[in-house]
Each structure stands twice: as structure tokens, then as C-alpha cells.
């Protein structure tokens, strides 16, 4: 039986900033936010000044001032890339409680442009452990770890040890994600014309690409580009008054394990198992009821472990979804239909692109000329979405379903 919050709110629109990817002309994160917000409000017909709740990773007061609005519900949850899935959960609860009817969830991050003009984001979400004087950092800073790949490589090695998998097994995830990206003109790796390293890739190319942190080569790692996006979540009453199709939030859950990887008990598991259980339970559905999935793919191994945690595959067999072709274009269980953080876009936090693609797929707008070439739209009516933030620490899972009409 579904839980109390089942379908108590819907995503009614999803849009991106005007330009995303590896932008020649540097953009600020604020610009990416504002463009996406304007676009999603235009799409739904909801005026910006009707937004009652603003959810972002620490930006809400600044954004509201910039937009000239004074919302009555402000959330700045910043737990890394999964923040946006948590925002949906929080917005749903606020709507169900009758506090607000219209919630804006927004993202802007100039991961690429920041190299030229600087950026801003929540501190330390990549490595965990707090500031330089926090004891978690004090006890790890001597040991030569840097960006996310340096740490995530350890999880792949443990998974290989425990289940007898190989790095080549995971390379299929990168290959299939690229296949999806070649159907998405907005994907940074859509084609050779769009990016020198774009277009289709083979498993061999993934394995032979530059070694970053053994066993991770660069094509096992997501990109760092520019992205802005926004979605609107409303009450059923507001949703019924709009011209856009609602995508119903049937279930939502969030959970966390460690923050510093030192405290990660099982390097082959994440809290997605718990957040998924909460979401499935609220929806009154399970993994067998899902027809597609959008999972966080900061690295190929992240996607494989997440698929296992969501119950889409047995432990140690997550990679088979991609290797067998089920997750690929035309396959029986499409995954990461936008091309993922591996080949579509990842700006540092990837939770927003997950929401946007889920909305597009379930509202039937995944290939309208902007969002995808022929073959990108699937027939899925249900989708499980999972965001993972920090170093495989905080997760948010959503069960989304298409409108009945």
C-alpha cells in the first residue's frame, strides 16, 4: 500500500540554461541558474513571482534577491550531487503539509568556466571531512589523495576483489552511455564535431584511454563542464491548471552513510539501498515495477554499485545491465538515456540533469528536437532516479511515474 505522500506532488516542468557543456564564453554559476529558472517558468507558464519555495545548494537567498522574489519556504540543503533529489523530497513534504503549492529546485555550476573566471560552490563536498582543521582531514591530508577519481578508484578495486569483476566490465557502462549521448544533441560528447573526443567509443578505447587512478582511466570518469537546470514541483491542484504534463512523485527517500571515506564500512555498497527502500515503500512499488533508471555516474563504478543498491541487479552484477545491452538504446531496461555524467554533462553535482531527463522521458518530451534525436525517447512509464553525493555518502532516491491520461 502506498505511503501518505504518494503522488502528493508532481514535477511539472524541467529546463536547462541556454548553453551548457564546454562553453567558449565563460559563464557564471549565477547566470546558469537564472537562465534555467526563466526557461522552466516560461515552459510551464508559472510566473517567477508565483514561486513560493526555493530549493538550492546554498544559493537560495542570493537567487531570490536576484529574481526579486521573497518565498515563504527556503531550503539550502547541500550534500553534494544528490542534493537535488533530496530537494524534491523536501518540496514534496512542504507541499503535502500545505505550506506551499509551487516549489522551484534550481542548479547552476560553472565547472568548466570556473577554470577561467573562478567559481563558487559548497566547500569540500568532493572529499568529505570538513575544513582543513577538521580531524577527518587532519588524518588524511598527508596521503596523496586529490580529486574524486583518486578516492573512487579504491571502491572499484574492492568490488573487483569481492565479486571477481574486471575494470573492462565497467568499461561497458562508459561505452553504452556514449551510445545514448550520440542521440542527444545537448550532450557534450554528442559527436566529433561537437567535441574532439565526442562520438561513439569502444570498450577498448575506454580501457586504453589515459590512466588517472588505476584502475580508472579517464573514460571511466565523468567530465567537468558547465550546467544549469531547474525543475518546478507543484501540488496536484496547480499541476492540473498547467499545459505541461505532470510527472508524479510516487516515492521519495533519502539516506546517508559516512561522509569521510575512512568511515565507509562496505566499499561496494551505498546508502541508496536504504533511500530506495523508503522510496519504493512510499510508492507501493519495487524494482520489478521500474521500466527505466537514471543513476548517478560520477564514475562507471558508481553506476554499477547504484544499480545493485536499487535492486535492479544482484550484488556484483550491476555492470551486466550495460554489458548485456539491456541499458543501451533499444534495450529492455534503458539507463541514463541522456548520456549520463560520463557523456552528457556533469558540472560537479549531477543531481539536476537526472531530474530533467526523468521529467523529459516520462512526459514524452525526450526528443522534441532540442532534447534528443530519434530513438532517445523510451516507452517507459516508471523510472527510479538516484542521486549520490559526497564520496558515495548521501543518497536520494525518487520513484517517478508518468501521468495516467
Amino acid at each position, binding site marked *: 500500500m502506498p505511503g501518505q505522500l504518494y503522488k502528493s506532488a508532481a514535477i511539472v516542468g524541467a529546463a536547462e540554461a541556454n548553453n551548457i557543456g564546454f562553453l567558449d564564453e565563460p559563464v557564471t554559476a549565477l547566470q546558469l541558474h537564472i537562465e534555467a529558472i526563466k526557461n522552466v517558468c516560461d515552459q510551464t507558464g508559472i510566473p517567477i513571482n508565483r514561486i513560493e519555495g526555493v530549493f538550492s545548494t546554498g544559493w537560495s537567498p542570493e537567487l531570490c534577491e536576484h529574481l526579486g522574489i521573497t518565498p515563504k519556504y527556503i531550503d539550502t540543503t547541500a550534500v553534494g550531487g544528490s542534493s537535488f533529489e533530496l530537494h524534491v523530497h523536501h518540496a514534496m513534504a512542504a507541499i503535502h503539509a500545505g505550506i506551499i503549492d509551487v516549489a522551484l529546485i534550481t542548479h547552476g555550476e560553472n565547472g568548466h568556466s570556473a577554470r577561467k573566471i573562478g567559481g563558487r560552490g559548497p566547500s569540500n563536498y568532493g572529499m568529505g*571531512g570538513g575544513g*582543513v*582543521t*577538521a*580531524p*577527518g*582531514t*587532519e*588524518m*588524511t*591530508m*598527508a*596521503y*596523496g*589523495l*586529490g*580529486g574524486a*577519481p*583518486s578516492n573512487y*578508484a*579504491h*571502491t*572499484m*578495486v*574492492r568490488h573487483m*576483489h569481492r565479486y571477481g569483476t574486471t575494470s573492462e566490465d565497467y568499461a561497458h557502462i562508459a561505452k553504452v552511455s556514449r551510445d545514448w549521448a550520440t542521440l542527444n544533441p545537448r550532450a557534450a560528447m554528442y559527436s566529433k564535431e561537437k567535441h574532439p573526443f565526442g562520438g561513439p567509443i569502444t570498450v577498448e578505447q575506454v580501457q586504453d584511454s*589515459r*590512466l*588517472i*587512478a*588505476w*584502475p*580508472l582511466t579517464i573514460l571511466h570518469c565523468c567530465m567537468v563542464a558547465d550546467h544549469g537546470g531547474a525543475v518546478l514541483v507543484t501540488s496536484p491542484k496547480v499541476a492540473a491548471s498547467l499545459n505541461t504534463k505532470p510527472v508524479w512523485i510516487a516515492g521519495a527517500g533519502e539516506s546517508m552513510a559516512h561522509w*569521510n*571515506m*575512512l*568511515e565507509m564500512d562496505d*566499499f561496494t555498497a551505498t546508502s541508496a539501498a536504504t533511500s530506495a527502500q523508503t522510496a519504493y515503500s512510499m510508492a507501493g512499488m519495487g524494482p520489478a515495477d521500474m521500466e527505466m533508471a537514471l543513476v548517478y555516474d560520477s564514475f562507471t563504478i558508481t553506476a554499477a554499485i547504484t544499480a545493485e543498491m536499487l535492486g535492479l541487479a544482484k550484488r556484483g552484477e550491476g555492470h551486466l545491465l550495460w554489458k548485456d545491452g539491456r541499458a543501451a538504446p533499444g534495450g529492455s531496461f534503458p539507463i541514463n538515456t541522456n548520456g549520463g555524467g560520463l557523456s552528457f554533462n556533469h558540472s560537479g553535482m549531477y543531481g539536476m540533469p537526472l531530474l530533467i531527463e526523468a521529467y523529459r522521458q516520462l512526459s514524452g518530451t525526450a526528443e522534441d528536437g532540442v532534447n534528443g534525436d530519434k530513438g532517445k525517447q523510451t516507452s517507459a512509464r516508471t523510472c527510479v532516479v538516484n542521486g549520490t553525493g559526497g564520496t558515495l555518502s548521501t543518497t536520494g532516491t525518487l520513484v517517478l511515474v508518468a501521468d495516467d491520461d
Partner: protein
Amino acid sequence: MAYELPIPTQGTHTRPFWEGTKAGKLMLPRCEDCNRTHWYPRYICPHCQSMNLGWMEASGEGFIHTYAVQHLVFGKWAKEAPYVTAYIDLKEGDRMLTVLRGVDPLSPEDIKIGAPVRVEFEVASEDTHIPFWRVVEV
């Protein structure tokens, strides 16, 4: 030769740990109420939420839990690449991070998860002796 790699910024409540390293001892924070150790050092026991914390000397022995080889590195460690990083399971049950010694970064398949390791200390400065773990020859 001066130690040129990053040296930890020491806090105040971790002083017994750093004092221990100077005496060649690996000290672990232990809760005086539930008797369990934890790592990294907390202000509160993560097992029972007591603030009655003390320290104990650990065996300095452990096993490789998992590892990776760092090839693309920025900052002070760049000139050391490639090198092996590892998470170590202590005999006491806690887990520490290290740059692993006594292994060949160019033959990562030869490194064995579960292999025994022992702690040693490098003098980085007068005040800071940094623990590193080395694979035990068998």
C-alpha cells in the same frame, strides 16, 4: 633532506596521537564508557555518544582493505606519481588511509587485498611524525 610533502595541520584534541607518533606509537582514540575505539578522532564517541574519551596504544598491525594507484596527481605529491594509496584495516577494527610502502605501483595486480601491513613513522617536522603503512615481507 627536508620533507616536501603535505604535513597535516594539527588540532588540539588530537595531541595525544601526534605525541604518540614521536615515540613510535600508534595511538587510537577509545571511549572510556563503551571501550570501543574509533578513527578518525572525534569530539564525541560515534558508538555511544559519550564525551568521556581517552587513548590507547594500537598494535600497529593491519591488512590491506583496498588500494589504487595514483597516476594523475596535482600539487606536492605530483612528483611522486605513480604511487599506491590504500585503506588499511587495523587489527583493532578501525580503518586508516595511507600511501602504501613496499609495493610496486607499476604492477598493481600483484598487490594483495588482505596482505599484512605494519605501521612506520616518517619524521616530517620536529612536531609531526607521519604514520605510513608498509607491506610486511613474508
